[in-house]
């Protein structure tokens, strides 16, 4: 049997910087460097053990200031695709230890407007008042029209995830709850069907991870976590064209289920299926996206996601606990991209068994995602406790 492509790769370090609504005295560089120091501490590694850096705009500065060149590098804003690139670089011998890091602070200052990264400048949407919530609302409304998905079902997702954040001492919105679905529905409307509490919040902060070889991982202090599968689905640029559920080409594969084909490839790579997943660290920009992902990834049939998430199935102790730290709704949403790393960090923490809240007992497989149909892409990564 062929060796798994990520057989010799492990995730060995995870860290968050401080996360807060506003981080006084920090900019994007200083907060990213804080996360880097913390992830080095998590692994016991030095800067000179790192021979690859995937930190978006900070890749160059980090390599320069750490004096760890010559180093492999990736300049794209890190999220699941870049973690997969880093794993591939290690698997193909281009480097042995990659630092993944990103952070954001001091970017969102004009508070009368929505955050700058949510507002498209594209000529076909700019004059119609579009921003992230409206883009994702156009996806949710279409699903509600087709399948009768209800605001109460969306609110159940939001209350579940916000309660995970309410309980987590490091969440930006720690202690803000607990919330019932009625509390979500009572919050002011932002973009129908999304109430304020159906939406991601905004904050500041940085994240970092370290990947290395399976062999090197054995000498490091923390339990290694392995990549069982991963892939990415894109249907185009985010927030520039109508976010239509039925956007498709000759393949017939539609934007409404973006992530489905990435999930199928990921499950095939790991010889797994949805029932093998112990914890669902799904990206939660808006409540409806969780319902959509359960359908897209094959956990339930098309149109049944609204019913599927009810009756405690996605809460603590449920069959498929979701977004167990509070996600972008409550834990943190550091900027345009950095918060996407939170899903992988939390997946690793679940598999290490070190979560201070909402730890899934004996979790062995975590499914993590980024993106959403309103943004025309979804990325998937499957993590596990055992070498694939």
């Amino acid at each position: 049997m062929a060796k798994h492509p990520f057989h010799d790769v492990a995730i060995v370090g995870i860290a968050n910087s401080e996360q807060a609504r506003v981080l006084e005295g920090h900019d994007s560089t200083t907060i990213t460097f804080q996360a880097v120091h913390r992830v080095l501490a998590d692994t016991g590694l030095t800067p000179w053990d790192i021979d690859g850096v995937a930190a978006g705009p900070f890749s160059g500065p980090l390599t320069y200031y750490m004096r760890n060149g010559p180093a492999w590098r990736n300049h794209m804003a890190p999220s699941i695709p870049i973690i997969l690139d880093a794993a591939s670089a290690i698997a193909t011998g281009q480097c042995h230890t990659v630092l993944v890091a990103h952070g954001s602070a001091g970017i969102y200052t004009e508070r009368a407007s929505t955050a700058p990264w949510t507002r498209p400048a594209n000529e076909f949407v700019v004059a119609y008042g579009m921003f992230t919530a409206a883009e994702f609302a156009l996806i949710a409304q279409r699903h509600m029209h087709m399948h009768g998905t209800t605001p109460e079902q969306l609110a159940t997702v939001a209350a579940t995830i916000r309660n995970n954040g309410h309980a987590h001492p490091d969440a930006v919105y720690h202690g803000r709850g607990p919330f019932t679905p009625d509390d979500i529905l009572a919050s002011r409307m932002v973009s129908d069907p999304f109430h304020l509490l159906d939406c991601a919040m905004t904050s500041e902060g940085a994240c970092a991870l370290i990947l290395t070889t399976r062999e090197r991982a054995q000498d490091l202090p923390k339990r290694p976590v392995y990549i069982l599968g991963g892939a990415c689905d894109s249907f185009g640029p985010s927030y520039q064209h109508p976010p239509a559920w039925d956007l498709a080409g000759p393949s017939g594969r539609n934007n409404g289920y973006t992530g489905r084909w990435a999930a199928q490839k990921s499950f095939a790579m790991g010889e797994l299926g949805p029932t093998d997943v112990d914890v669902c660290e799904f990206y939660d920009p808006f409540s409806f996206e969780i319902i959509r992902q359960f359908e897209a990834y094959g956990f339930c049939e098309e149109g049944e996601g609204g019913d599927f998430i009810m009756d405690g199935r996605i809460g603590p102790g449920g069959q498929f606990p979701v977004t167990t730290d509070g996600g972008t709704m409550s834990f943190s949403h550091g900027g345009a991209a950095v918060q996407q790393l939170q899903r992988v960090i939390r997946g690793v923490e679940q598999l290490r068994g070190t979560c201070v809240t909402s730890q899934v007992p004996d979790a062995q497989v975590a499914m993590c995602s980024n993106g959403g149909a309103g943004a025309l892409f979804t990325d998937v990564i499957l993590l596990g406790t055992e070498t694939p």
Partner: protein
Amino acid sequence: MSEILQPQSPGIPLPVPTIYSQPYWDGCRVGELRFQRCQDCGAITMDPAPACSACFSENLEWEVSTGLGEVYSWTTVWRPQTPAFTVPYVAVIVTLDEGFWLLANIINCPVDAVHVGMRVKTTFVELSEEITLPYFEPVD
């Protein structure tokens, strides 16, 4: 009786046309909703693009839409993108009768009347010397 949706006022961010989209915006200024049709495969491309979105041919020609269509999806926005926008406004994706999608706002319509399948037609509002925007309004 709910509020009647109005077009936005000058001061909102406006489109910056490109070489390949300029004919679309020129059309709006004379009250025409223009779209591109591929002369090789017959497919429609929208938004305006440098190549056919069905066969990637560059052999595209402009045609004029009837401007008639139906609402495919919608959202009523209560938190403005920037203070330049007046709320509420309703963003819609409309499926034009020719078969392409256009994202715009709907006006001249009660705010709570918008629904999937609603028949609409284009109407044009001048926002600057260079830019006239297509909006949709209900068909009587």
